[in-house]
């Protein structure tokens, strides 16, 4: 659970109060430039606030080592990089970075299936489309199996049907495994369908937060 009190970040964010519930699906909505990405980066200490306090499971982020935190609260950025090499390389690199034990091919295929990527593990990533790369990056994050996911518009490069399918998969997975899922989405429909909790932002402020 994240708990935010009087957090400011430069002149970009100014949030008095925000609670993100545990083991729930939270969607963050708001127009472009309203500070959604910046907020996610605060949650896993990619940046630190200029004032106020953020708690994760009752512990102040100031007292949690950034790398330890990022291995529990994994973020998928809006435009994640794909590394040179094969699909397998790209899936495993997350586990290597996080210093976790590597996964067998069965597991990797299971992940590819989850993100609707019908490809071989040895295929090169060079010629993949934007949407395929986005799904691969999502698979890489799912494979890490963290306590909490921060997904920043994970389906922006996908068509509406695929988007719906994939978000549904992630949501099912999160619920089945008791994960906390925080997802920025431009799709009002996705938020209405899947969210347990909706946070709406405008101009760097939270203008509403509510259970659905």
């Amino acid at each position, binding site marked *: 659970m994240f708990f935010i009190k009087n957090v400011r970040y430069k002149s970009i964010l100014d949030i008095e109060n925000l609670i993100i519930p545990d083991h729930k699906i939270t969607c963050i909505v708001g127009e472009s430039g309203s500070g959604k990405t910046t907020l996610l980066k605060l949650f*896993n*200490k*990619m*940046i*630190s606030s200029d004032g106020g306090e953020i708690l994760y499971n009752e512990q102040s982020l100031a007292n949690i080592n*950034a*790398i330890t935190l*990022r*291995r529990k609260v*994994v*973020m*998928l*950025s809006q*435009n*994640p*990089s794909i*590394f040179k090499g094969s699909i397998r390389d790209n899936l495993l*690199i*997350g586990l*290597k*970075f*996080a*210093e976790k034990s590597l996964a067998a091919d069965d597991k990797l295929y299971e992940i590819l299936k989850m993100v609707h990527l019908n490809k071989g593990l040895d295929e090169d990533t060079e010629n993949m489309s934007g949407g395929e790369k986005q799904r691969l*990056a999502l698979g*890489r*994050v799912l494979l*890490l199996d963290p306590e909490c996911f921060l997904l920043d518009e994970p389906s922006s490069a996908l068509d509406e049907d695929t988007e719906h399918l994939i978000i549904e998969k992630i949501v099912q997975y999160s619920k089945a495994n008791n994960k906390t899922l925080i997802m920025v989405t431009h799709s009002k429909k996705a938020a209405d369908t899947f969210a347990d909790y909706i946070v709406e932002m405008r101009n760097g402020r939270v203008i509403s937060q509510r259970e659905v």
Partner: protein
Amino acid sequence: MDKVVDLQIWQMAAAYVFVLLLLFIVRRRGINREKEIIISTFRMTIQLILTGYILVYLFEKPNPFFTILVILIMEIFSIYNIIKRVKEKLSSRLKKIIAFSMIIGTTTSLLFFILIVVNVSPWYDPRYFIPIAGMLIGNAMTGISLGVTKLIDGMYAQRNLIETSLMLGATPEASCKPVVDGAFDSAILPTINSMVGMGIVFLPGMMTGQILSGTSPVTAIEYQIAIMLGILGSVALTVILFVQLGYKTFFNSESQLVFADK
């Protein structure tokens, strides 16, 4: 081969015909470089003449204090030169790391070379110490300049890749490994490549100088091989120190990327 031809003044002057030729070419073609050509010719001449007299003086009265002083001046000059030569803006932390890597990298390889490879006695004999130091420091300077440029450019160009890695839980070191390795590789590559053509495509300056001034080519070659290896070591040591410490200046204590303001 028995008598070295000492150049007369008029012979030296004749060599400047090459500069006139270059000036003629750039003027005819309207390339705006005359000022730089004249200034650099002038500086080269004055600096070498002064250095010549200083070396004569130092060689006549070997003194450890003066030898160390000369090395120190070389180090300071080369560090200043690197900082000036690199176009990218450098944070003060990065400048300190450049200085540290240059000093530690070159003195370590210099001492090894002087004390173990050549085994000079006394150790501070300026006839050996100064020219060898010049070559090791000069090449390390070129190497590290390349390394600095490549590291900074790489950090900016690969920023998204580094961020992606950090978000997956990577340590700063793991997230920057491609950039750091790339910078190291491009900084040592010219030195490695220069060994390939050695003796076939060109005779290196030091060896040419020795042969012209009467040393047996075999001795000149022995020294050349040793000094090439010394240069390789000095470049490698300096650059690895620099890149290994340098990438850290792009992170704060919370493992967050921080870029010096552009």
